[in-house]
């Protein structure tokens, strides 16, 4: 506080996460030969959307694998994320309502 009662130094109320740019994973130029994960977040009709994508991707000769989050209200469990990372090259997550 200065003499006039004005606060001049305050404490940072935030989590103080150092600003750091998160780099996106490198995007493949083509899906040819890749395994595509299809993640259903379990919102209503997300499965309908993914069924269509599944069909179209298989028509192109791609291998697909299906996954679902236990509930759309929470982030995907670590196990599920690791499973997808191990088994797939790319993942498509369906947000629907």
């Amino acid at each position, binding site marked *: *506080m200065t003499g006039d009662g*004005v*606060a*001049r*130094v*305050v*404490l*940072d*109320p*935030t*989590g*103080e*996460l150092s600003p750091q740019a998160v780099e996106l994973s490198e995007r493949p130029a083509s899906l040819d030969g890749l395994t595509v994960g299809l993640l259903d977040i379990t919102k209503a009709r997300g499965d309908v959307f993914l069924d269509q994508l599944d069909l179209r991707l298989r028509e192109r000769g791609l291998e697909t694998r299906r996954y679902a989050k236990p*509930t759309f*209200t*929470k*982030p995907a469990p670590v196990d599920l994320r690791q499973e997808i990372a191990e088994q797939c090259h790319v993942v498509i997550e369906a947000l629907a309502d």
Partner: protein
Amino acid sequence: MVSDAPTAPTTAPTTGPTTGPAGAPPLGLPDGWVAVVKRDCPTCVTVAPALAELAEQVALTVLTQDDPGFPEGLPPGAGPVDDTSLDRSWLLDIETVPTLLHRDGGTEDERLVGWDRAEWRRATGVADLGEGLPEYRPGCGSLSVDPARTDELRVRFEGGRLRSRRVDIAALEDEFEAAFDRGWTDGLPVVPPTEARVLRMLEGTTRDPHEVVAVVPPDLVECTVEKVAVNAVMAGCRPEYLPVVLAAVEAACTDEFNMHGLLATTWFSGPMVVVNGPIARRIGMNWGMNAMGQGNRANATIGRALQLVVRNVGGGRPGGVDRATLGNPGKYTFCWTETPPSELDEGPDWPSQAVEHGFGPDDDTVTLFAADGVRGFADQLSREPESLARGLAEILRTIAHPKLALAFDAAVVLSPEHLRVFRGAGWSKARLRERLAELTLLPPGATTRGAHGIAEGMPDGFDAVELPKFRDGGLLLFTAGGGAGLFSAVIGGWASGSMGSQPVTRRIGS
């Protein structure tokens, strides 16, 4: 006024460290006797001749808090030592002047507070000390505990405990505008979290400032007691509210409550904090008239502090992870307390929400519920519990949508006048809950998609059977409110149970 309040002389030998916190300037005092005085204290003025006498016979250093020339007549080497900065008084933890203490090897082994001739003679071994002086005089408050000075002293000596990044407000910046500009507010002005204010806030808890309270979503940041205190200052809390805020933050960040999902949902809800236990009365919370409305500092600022922690520490902001379609005004703050047992003549038939969850009536707790807005329920004619329950059930069946079952929790807040109808007829809380469960059953066909010209409804198969509106444990019953008004409140929840948020009750610590 602390500074002029007479304090009875006491003898209080201490063995604790008197060199102050680590990193503080050394006291720079020799071993032997130390007296702390100020001229603006009639007892110190009275005792001044005795100090001069004492200094002739023992090793004595006199510290003076206000007038560097006081007391006069001391022999060379005894002082007075200028302590107008109050540094030594603070580090010696002086509360009253005169204080006479003895140090040996840097450790204090005797402390006399005020003037008590017999005690001074005994302790110093000077048998005729203060001959002619009164036998007893209480001391005055030390300047180092003067409220006008303690903030500055605490920052000087304890500011180093605070680990938060310091943010300089530029000379031409307005301190309130600066908080808006940095994105720290909920849209209303916040109290600038200066070091002095945060240190004062931390006096409200016995917990270490660096202890991690919770991992706050969505950024999953480890949040310390200190960070909660910073945000509690901004919200306008008093230090005595801090333990409640800490418990609320802990409860919000449990997996069961699922603050992350609650923040991210497009639904209206935010955390509602209900306080139970004697602490509510102690810190002046409102359970009566306008309990859920504006005007009570504790109600208003505790709920706000939780939201500011989520916003600032967790990084959860509208338009970011907070995706609410409309939100609700309770997301500024939503905190109140249930009618205390003493006001309710509470018997075992009508336990509080916290007691229902296994806590004692004298336990201090917070219960968090993922709440959307408050919806009024009017019934001014029912004098029989069955009639009142039926009206309430009609409202409850419409939570979220009249054709949806088992998807959303709800809370009912019964006003005293409605509560009287149930209790007067001998209905326990358990009986009301049981009856409401029966009355809110949705009959077969009522929830079929497309029925009644409404597309919304339950999926095929579910609609063919009778469905409970609420899951087990999904209907919370509270009591609060002013004495007049045959109105109660119904508060819808969010996605219920393990698929969304479960109400969480946590004990409030110290």
